[in-house]
């Protein structure tokens, strides 16, 4: 509507439409910059992606070089698989459990460290260390901490008399998933803390000053200023944490390998176990394709959150 009215009032000069080829030629210098990066990405990402989708339609019997076309059989098998429900439930516990707990701890840590009192720099550095050390290192460290007979947690709990026997953190089917979530929380909460801290420090202090003048107490300041101001960072961090947890492989794989009796199998470890360990490439690829579809939903929100941010900054510039 607005366009039509604008034309009636004063015909705007229409920018000359160039053909796609002309635009490409005109901007050829840009491809010189992005070319190498896009070539490598096509080789190591686009090719594997297409390969996975095609492979999911084939059966690859172990110890045989044959690829047998089976159509959607791998998908049918997947949805009827006895482990399918369990793996989905475990994946949800692992992803949501790890996200919620590291969010709570990370936000608490950020609010604490953000206080301008002595020694907070030291505390901050200490709190970040779990995020920096490797996943394999963390996995073995926690396997050792959670050792039922010799591990620190079991022994310490028995010494102070909280429990009277070894704790089977990774051996008990009902406990194993939550033990893994605990390890993941330890590894992930510093990331949330770093993000929240950056978000907190970007909040203009004038807002708090004004609120104090108006007589707002600490809780009111937190709800009325901190939370809404922090919202964009909270969104991005949550999406990143959900995706990071959903995709993390090393900690569950090194700590339990999906066991005992598949009780801690999540989608990622299942893809690895069926594909790399049991050499069922086709079936494993079918799980990967389903995973792609689930992740596309997350990535849509992630990309939208990120690009919305950059659009806003463009508005400020203009």
């Amino acid at each position, binding site marked *: 509507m607005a366009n039509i009215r604008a034309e009636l009032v004063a015909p705007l000069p229409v920018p000359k439409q160039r053909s796609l080829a002309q*635009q490409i030629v005109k*901007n050829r210098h*840009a491809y010189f*910059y*992005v070319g*190498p*990066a*896009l070539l*490598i*990405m096509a*080789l*190591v*990402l*686009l090719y*594997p*992606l297409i*390969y*996975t989708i095609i*492979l999911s339609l084939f059966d690859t019997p172990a110890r045989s070089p044959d690829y047998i076309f089976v159509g959607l059989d791998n998908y049918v098998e997947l949805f009827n698989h006895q482990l399918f429900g369990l793996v989905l439930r475990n994946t949800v516990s692992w992803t949501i459990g790890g996200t919620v707990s590291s969010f709570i701890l990370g936000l*608490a*840590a950020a609010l*604490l460290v*953000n*206080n*301008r*009192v002595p020694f907070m720099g030291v*505390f901050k550095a*200490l*709190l*970040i*260390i779990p995020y920096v*050390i*490797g*996943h*394999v*290192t963390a996995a*073995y460290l926690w396997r050792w901490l959670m050792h039922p007979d*010799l591990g*620190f947690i079991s*022994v310490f709990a028995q010494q102070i008399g909280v429990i009277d026997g070894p704790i089977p953190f990774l051996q008990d089917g009902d406990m194993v998933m939550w033990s893994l979530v605990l390890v993941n929380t*330890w590894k992930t909460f510093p990331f949330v803390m*770093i993000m929240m801290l*950056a978000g907190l420090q970007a909040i203009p202090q004038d807002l*708090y000053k004004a609120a104090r003048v108006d007589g707002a107490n600490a809780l009111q300041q937190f709800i009325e200023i901190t939370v809404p101001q922090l919202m*964009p*960072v909270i969104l*991005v961090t949550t999406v990143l944490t959900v*995706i990071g947890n959903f995709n993390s*492989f*090393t900690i569950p*794989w*090194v700590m339990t390998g999906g066991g005992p009796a598949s009780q801690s199998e999540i989608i*990622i470890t299942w*893809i*690895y176990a069926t594909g790399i360990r049991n050499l069922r*490439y086709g079936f494993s690829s079918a799980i990967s394709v389903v*995973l792609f579809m689930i992740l596309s939903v997350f990535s849509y929100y*992630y990309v939208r959150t*990120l690009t919305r941010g950059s659009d806003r*900054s463009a508005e400020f510039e203009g």
Partner: protein
Amino acid sequence: MSAVSQSSHASVQRASGRLSARTRRSIVRLTIIYVCTTILALFAALPMVWMFSTAVKPRAEVFREPTTIIPSNATWDNFIRVVQPTSTSGRYFGTYFLNSTIVSVSSAFLSVVVAAPAAYAFSRFRFPGKSPAYFAVLARNMFPLIVFLVPLFSLMTSLRLTNTYPGLILAYLTFTLPLSIWLLKGFFDAIPPELERAARIDGCTRFGAFIRVILPLTTPGLAATAIYSFIQAWNEFPYALNLAYSTQMRTLPVGMTFFFSENQSDWTGLMATAVIISIPVVIIFMILQRYFISALTQGAVKA
């Protein structure tokens, strides 16, 4: 936030000899802050203390009751055992360490070199195909490495790149490259385009302006991106396990899993290895903490 004003207020009050209600409140507040922070810091650091404590215990002490955090006879034997080329468990340590260093440094360096021009183009130029390409860059961060493993393995086999440095470095670019492009674009976005315009007027070519004016200004960003890529590559596990599986090509995390499966109950040796692997990243991080944090947060907080 208000702790500063309150604590300065507190010292004035204390000088007058009496504790007012306000002073008492700020002491309670400080106590709560320190107690909570200490609990969180213990959660983060106690496992590391236990790691170090096990690493300096004599092998037999681990199995002795009661278990203690402070070892009764601290020793460096475990460290020597796991790195000594003449001992069974330390035979390949040097090789693993060298492999990890070569692969991590090269991936960090390469991803910055390839990502910088691409990120610059995404930040400054308009060209057909820009949004789908940038979408691919962003979306890559969403997808787990594991799903690319089987196809990458077949690709590397046909290129004869399994068990080679270039093969593993190329595989590491799958995650360091998109991330570096994204991080660097943020740093380039922060530099006003007027700078290039001025450089062009002074006779610089477009590429010259990028190399001589913009890149030097982004040094902290380049450093942050390189560190981030280095730490990611140093800690990576599934690709290294499957694409560089020969004994001569294993990286440290992979070597660690083999150490564990070959020496099942050697917890002291395993923890000594864990300490050694962690030292480089923790030191790098401690020195360059500021850059690392700016790399992590710039995308999210920019808006």
